[in-house]
């Protein structure tokens, strides 16, 4: 608040092109009226309090709680700090933790190695302004409007053991959602189905932003289409690439809805996000323990969020 009197009209504003006789008065420091200052303060403060109170303070509290033995029921003054014990417990004596990390990494790998390049490939094809391009695009990003929870249900119609289409067609009797050795692959297919459309959309926007003269120059130089793409177009899309990378990492870290509707993240579908939830709303509420899991998620995501912010802010300054 003490900063408010320092607010200046943007210095980047160029002075009016045609200076009249009275012109030339550059009011660099515009003192705002009292009402204006109150209005500005409120415009920032109310949303800021909401986001701080409901997102940032809870995030900080999670980190703090991860060092305690709180059970979630007792009064707050009985909290004891136990150092890193929750973390060592998570790693050493919590059987679902290792599979959950593996599944999260697998999820990331599948989205990153299969779904993302495929989405990019489709974007490149669709960028050619083909006839019927609109139909192809619509079909591909239709899954993006559906919630992941709903996608879990839609794919059940293909995966179900007795009534599913896959088993009916192939005469198999695999319980795609229930069998703990295959269900992670089944949900990843469903998740990738949605991710491809999203990535395609982002790259399509990115490709449209690439200066056409670059491609023409590459064509004049006799570069083949794929060579021009990898050597010229792809590097120019660096900001989009980083955004896609971050979106993919965060999506695979936040993956939750799909496994939760299938079996609440148990029996082959362990994910860190599901473990946190089980530890809080499940029968056993182990707060310190759950917080340690949550803090791990928080730290990983903050690394990538920082990369993202650095990229987009640099973009904006240019």
């Amino acid at each position, binding site marked *: 608040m003490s900063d408010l009197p320092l607010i200046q009209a943007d210095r980047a504003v160029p002075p009016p092109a045609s200076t009249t006789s009275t012109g030339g008065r550059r009011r660099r420091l515009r003192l705002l009226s009292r009402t*204006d200052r109150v*209005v500005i303060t409120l415009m920032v403060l109310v949303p800021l309090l909401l986001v701080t109170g409901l997102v940032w303070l809870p*995030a900080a509290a999670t980190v703090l709680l991860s060092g305690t033995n709180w059970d979630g029921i007792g009064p707050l003054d009985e909290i004891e700090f136990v150092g890193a014990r929750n973390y060592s417990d998570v790693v050493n004596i919590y059987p679902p933790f290792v599979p959950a990390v593996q599944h999260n990494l697998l999820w990331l790998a599948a989205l990153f190695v299969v779904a993302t390049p495929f989405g990019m490939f489709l974007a490149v094809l669709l960028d050619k302004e083909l006839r019927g391009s609109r139909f192809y695009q619509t079909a591909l990003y239709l899954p*993006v409007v559906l919630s992941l929870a709903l996608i879990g249900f839609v794919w059940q119609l293909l995966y179900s053991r007795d009534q599913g289409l896959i088993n*009916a067609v192939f005469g198999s009797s695999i319980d795609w959602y229930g069998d703990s050795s295959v269900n992670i692959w089944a949900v990843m297919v469903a998740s990738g189905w949605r991710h491809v459309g999203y990535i395609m959309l982002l790259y399509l926007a*990115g490709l449209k932003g690439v200066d056409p003269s670059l491609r023409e120059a590459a064509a004049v130089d006799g570069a083949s289409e794929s060579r021009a793409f990898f050597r010229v177009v792809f590097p120019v899309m660096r900001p989009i690439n980083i955004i896609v990378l971050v979106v993919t990492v965060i999506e695979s*870290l936040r993956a939750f809805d799909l496994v939760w509707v299938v079996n609440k993240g148990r029996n082959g579908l362990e994910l860190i996000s599901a473990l946190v939830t089980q530890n*809080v709303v499940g029968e056993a509420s182990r707060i310190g323990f759950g917080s340690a899991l949550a803090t791990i*998620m*928080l730290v990983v995501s903050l690394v990538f969020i920082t990369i993202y912010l650095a990229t987009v802010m640099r973009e904006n300054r240019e």
Partner: protein
Amino acid sequence: MSVDTPVRRRKLTPLRILLHGFLIVVSLAWLFPIAWAVLTSLRSYDYTAANGYVSFGGWTLDNYVTAWRTAEFGQHFLNSVYITVPAVLLTLFLASCVAFVIARFSWKLNLVLLGIFTAANLLPQQALLIPLFRLFTEVPLPEFMSDSELLYDSYWGLILINVAFQCGFCVFVLSNYMKALPRDLYEAAMVDGASIWRQYWQVTMPLCRPALAALATLEVTWIYNEFFWATVLMRTGDKFPVTSSLNNLRGEFFTDNNLVSAGSVLVAIPTLVIFFMLQRHFVRGLTLGASKG
């Protein structure tokens, strides 16, 4: 983005046929799960049980009637409306306020402010769950606002958390959009003696209509699709929005896939309608955050 060369009649070379063939196959494969859900929902359980799902016949609308009744979709859709409409309006209002200040004034804390909001949108929800859960069970509400008398298990709680979470994306997009508006407008407005509020409400907001429309479309689908917060911050089944009520439905629907599919289609309809009616806005909204302009 058409290149400035005259449109050439493209000949159908074998390569182009291959390309179209590939795209058609992929598109149909992508549409297939949705089409299959619609198809299954239109067939009677008895027929498919007797003849298998790979068969033809047994057409009926009964699944929709049964699904609607047993799952109380009417109530759940209303719950979704109670949560989504205020949450979207509030998100756009609050986010546009912050975005306006960020775009209008250069101020040393601008980047910090933008970072605080944008990053909040990208945090994993589960990482905040534990303190929020406790907070929501501690904050009392008067009975006329929530029959749980707590923020927990109330529409208000869900509206607030959705707003807090979604603000970041909208601040980011709107501040970029507002920065691109011509500066002279504000100069002129100030000469006319317009207050900051008027500059925001009567000068900036009308110009942001395209961005607001795109964001509104996107936010409606996102908040309508929101699953996690409602699952963990609600207890009473009757109050669940429709997306989170899906999980209860599965128990009720048992192993009747025809009912599951009818339920899925019903839940998908609002987002599909929005998507087909406002496709342009939806797509622009998704890409607004990713590219300039």
